[in-house]
C-alpha cells in the first residue's frame, strides 16, 4: 500500500510533546516524514479463520494455532470467526532509522516516533479493507499477542500460520520481537451479529500502571 502522510500529532506525542510548543521542531518533523515515506514500502496480509472452542482455548480451524487465556476469550466473545492481521512498515524504516542514528540522533528519534505512528495507519488501512471485503459482518478491535493474558509466545506460531515471512517479509526473533521492528500482529473478531462494546485500549493494557502517557491523561494511540 502507499502511505501518503503520517499522523504527526500522534508521533509528537510519542516524542513526549504533551502540550509543549512543538513549532521549533516542525521543520525537522516534516523533513523526516518526507524521508520516511520515501523509504518505506508498507505491507499487510490478513486471513479469515473459523473458530473452534476446545479445552485449551480457541482453535483456528485448519491450523495448529490456539488462542489461550481469558483476555482473548473475552475479546472474541460472540465471534465465530476471526481475522489474523500482520502488518509491517517494511525493512526500509529500520534501515533509515539505523542510518540516521549514525548521522543525526535527533532525526533518528523523530523518525522512529513517526514510524510508530505510521504503522498504526497501515493497520487502520488494512482494517478498512477487511471491513469492505466482508460486508454485513461485525468486528472487534485489534488485539495483539502480549495484550492481557494472551501469551506473547504465540507470536512465532502466529507468523508461521500466516506465512508472513514469505508474504510480507515479517519475521519473529527468538526473543519474540517482530522484525522489521515497526510491525504489528493482531486478532480481529468477526461476527454475524452486533457485538457488545468491549473495553478497549488502556483499560486492558498490561502497561496501564506504569505508562507515562496514561498517567498524564494521554493515550498512546494503539
Amino acid at each position: 500500500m502507499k502511505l501518503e502522510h503520517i499522523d504527526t500529532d500522534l508521533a509528537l506525542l510519542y516524542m513526549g510533546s504533551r502540550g509543549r510548543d512543538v513549532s521549533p521542531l516542525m521543520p525537522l518533523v516534516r523533513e523526516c516524514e518526507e524521508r520516511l515515506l520515501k523509504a518505506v514500502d508498507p505491507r499487510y496480509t490478513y486471513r479469515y479463520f473459523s473458530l473452534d472452542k476446545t479445552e485449551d482455548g480457541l482453535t483456528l480451524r485448519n491450523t495448529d494455532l490456539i488462542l489461550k487465556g481469558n483476555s482473548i476469550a473475552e475479546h472474541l466473545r460472540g465471534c465465530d470467526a476471526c481475522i489474523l492481521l500482520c502488518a509491517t512498515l517494511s525493512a526500509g524504516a529500520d534501515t533509515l532509522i539505523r542510518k540516521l542514528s549514525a548521522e543525526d540522533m535527533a532525526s533518528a528519534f523523530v523518525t522512529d516516533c513517526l514510524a510508530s505512528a505510521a504503522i498504526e495507519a497501515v493497520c487502520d488501512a488494512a482494517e478498512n479493507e477487511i471491513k469492505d471485503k466482508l460486508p454485513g459482518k461485525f468486528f472487534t478491535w485489534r488485539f495483539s499477542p502480549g495484550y492481557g493474558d494472551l501469551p506473547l509466545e504465540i507470536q512465532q506460531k502466529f507468523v508461521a500460520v500466516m506465512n508472513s515471512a514469505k508474504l510480507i517479509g515479517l519475521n519473529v526473533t527468538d526473543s519474540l520481537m517482530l522484525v522489521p521492528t515497526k510491525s504489528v500482529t493482531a486478532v480481529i473478531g468477526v461476527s454475524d451479529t452486533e457485538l457488545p462494546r468491549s473495553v478497549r485500549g488502556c483499560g486492558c493494557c498490561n502497561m496501564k500502571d506504569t505508562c507515562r502517557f496514561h498517567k498524564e491523561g494521554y493515550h498512546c494511540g494503539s
Partner: protein
Amino acid sequence: MDLKRLIKEREFIFLDGAMGTMLFDKGLKMGEIPELLNIEKPEWIIDIHKQYVSAGSDIVYSNTFGANRYKLSRSGKTVSNVVSAAIANAAEACKGTDTLVALDIGPIGQLLEPAGTLSFEEAYDIFAEVIKAGNDADLIVLETMTDLHELKAALLAAKENSDKPVITTMTFEENLRTFTGCGISAMAYTLEGLGADAIGINCSLGPKELMPAVEELSRCTSLPIVLKPNAGLPDTVTGEYSVTPKEFAQLMTELIPLGVKFVGGCCGTSPEFIRELKAVFDGRKYLKPEPVLKSVCCTPANTVFIDRPRVIGERINPTGKKRFKEALASGDIDYILTQAIEQQHAGADILDVNVGLPGIDEKGMMVKVIKALQEVTDLPLQIDSTDPAVIEAGLRCYNGKAIVNSVNGEEKSLLSVLPLVKRYGAAVVGLCLDENGIPKTAEERFAIACKIVSRAEALGIDRRDVFIDCLTLTASAEQDGVFETLNALERVRKELGCQTVLGVSNISFGLPARETVNSCFLTMALTKGLTLPIINPNIEAMMQAVRAFNLLASYDKGSVEFISHYGNSQAVTKTDNKESQGVDLAYAISNGLKGEGARMTAELLKTTEAMTIINEMLIPALDKTGSDFETGKIFLPQLIQSAGVAQSCFEVIKQHLAANGSASESKGRIVLATVKGDVHDIGKNIVKVLLENYGYEVIDLGKDVDCQLVVDTAKAKDVRLVGLSALMTTTLPSMEKTIRLLREQLPECKVMVGGAVLTPEYAEQIGADFYARDAKESCDIAKKVLG
C-alpha cells in the same frame, strides 16, 4: 544425467511445482512443520514427487525448504534425520527415471544482522549443516531468498561443502526489490561472481507480474535464467490462487524471448501446471539472452555501473591522519562511520576502506568496519590492504560485489590476490608495478597492465572486473612522469578496454596550492579516460571538476545533475550569512544548528584554549538545555538536537587536539549495551550521545549483546559504570543475567538500567544500582558514580 548435460541437451528444463500447496491438500495444518512429514508420512511425500515426475519435471525439489537447525529446534528431530529422509523420498520417487533430485534450501527463518540477530558466520554454519546432510542429492537449490547476505552465506556454504551445481533464486516484489531492498542487478552480479550455476526468481508474484523482473535480469547475467512463479496472486481473505494451469503455461511462454531456461511453479501450482508447461513449451526454442555485461560494484540496494567516471572516496584511511589513527587504536568505529557519511553526502560513489595500522588486528578491524559501514551506507566498498588474509576476511563478510585494492604485477601478489578475487566474485585494482618497482615509462607500465589482465583472465576473471591503476607520481619530484602516467592510462583504456583508477592527490605532494594542482590533474586524467578517480570528495574543487567533466563529456544529460548541484549556490551562501549574524555557540546549541556549531568552534579555536571553550561555553549551554528539559520547557527531540550540535563541536575540538599531539580528556569510561535478544537500540544511542557530551568515554557494544561480553569488556577496560537497555519484557531476563554476571565477576562496577518496560521497582528487583527514566537522568547518574 547431470545438470550440466541437461543444460546442454535440453531446450528447457522443467522444475516441479508447489510442495506446500500439495501438502495442505493432503491434510497438513497451517503452522505445522512440513519437513517432518518426510519421516512421519513418507508416502505422502513420495506420492507428490511421483506426480511431478510423471508430469514431466526434470528436477524435483526435496521437501527440505525449512529443514535447518533453527526451524527444527523444537521438533525433536535433527537436520540430518530430516534431510536424509527427504532426499531418500525424492530419490525413491525418481527411481528408474532421468529426473534429478535437488536439495532444496529456503531462508533460515531468522533475519541476519543488522535487521535481526543472526550473524553471517552463524548463517553459514546453519546452511553448511543442511548441505552436508543432503550429500545424496544431485544438485542444490537455494530459493525464496530475500536477503542477499543470507544467500551469499548459503552459496558459500554450498561451494565449500559440496561439489554439486547450485541454482539460486530470490523473491522480488512489484517494485523489483526483495523485502530487504535487494535489487535485481545486485543479485545477478553478486551471484554470478560467487559462482552460481543458474540464477533467477521464484514465488511472490505470478508469471505476468514477474515479466519486468525477468526483463531486467536478462540484461544483467550470462547465466541460465530460472523462473518459478506463483499461480498468480492469492485472494487476500482466503489465500486461494486464481491462475489456471493453462493460463499459467501460456503466460510462461511469453517469457521465452527474455531467455528463461528453467521453468516451474511455486505457491499455488500443482503437477497439472507442469504438465501444461511441458505441453506448450514443446517445440519452442530456448533464446539465450546476449547481455552486454558492465563493470560493476554493488551493495544489495545500490549497483554502481562504471559507465562514466565514478568517485572513490579516499578518506577511510589512517595514513597521515592522527585523529583517524587514534580512532582505530581505541576502536572508535563511530568516527569511521562519520567519515563514510561525510563522503557520501559530498558525492562519493564508492568508498575505499583501509584500516591498516601497526599494532592493531587489521583483519578483525576490517571485518568490524565493513559490517558497521554496511549498516549505515549503501555505497559499495573497496577493500584496501596489503595483506591477503585481511582482503579475504573482508571479501567474505562483504554484502554485494566489492572491489579489492589491490593486486600488482609481482608474482607473489598475482598468486595470492587473484584467486581471492575469483572465489568471492569481486573486482580488483591492478597496480602497474612489479618486483622492480614502478617503471618509468608508459610502455613498461602498460606491459604490466597487460600481464595482470591476462593472469586474471586465465583464472576466469573477466577484464571488465580488472581496474588498472597506472600510478600517480609526485609532480614536484618527477615532473616528466606525469605524462607517462597519463599516456599509460590512455593506452589501457583504449587498447585493453579496462576501467582505470588513479589516486589523484599524490600528484601535488610537496607543492603549494595543492587543490589547484589536484583538480587540474584530475581533469587531464579524465580526458585521457580515467573512470575511477580516488579522491577526497569533501574538497569541493575536486567534485566540481568531476561534475563539470561529466557535463562536458555528455554523461550528465541535459546538465541535470550539474544544475541541481550548483544552480542554487548563490542562494545557499546568502542564507549562511544570515544565519551567522548574531549567533553564538550557546544559541547554536539550543537551536540545533549543527553546521554552525562546528564552524564556530573551529573559529574560536584560533583564539581560545580548547578547555576554555568546553568549560565556559559548551558545558553551560548543555546544562541549560538539560534543565530546560527537566522543567519541561523543551522535550526530548530538542534535547537530542542540542546534544548533536555539542557533539559536532566536541569533534572539532578532538581533531584540533589530536593534530596538536594532545589527547582529549575523559571523565571516565562507561560501557553501554542493549541486552541479548533485543534489537531496539535507539534509546541506548540517545543516552550515548548525551554521555559523550558530558565528557565520558562511551564503549558502545551495540544491540543484542552477549551477557558475558559486557562483563569482559568492563573488566578489560577498567570500567566502573555499565548502562543496560531493554525494550521488551522478553529480554529482561538477559538484563538480569548480565547484572548477575557483573555482580559475580566485577562486584565494584555499578549498573544503571533503562528502557520502555522497566520501572524503578523492577530495576531494584533485578539488582541494578540505578534506574534511569530518561537519557538526561543517565548523565546525572554518571556524574554521581564517576564525577
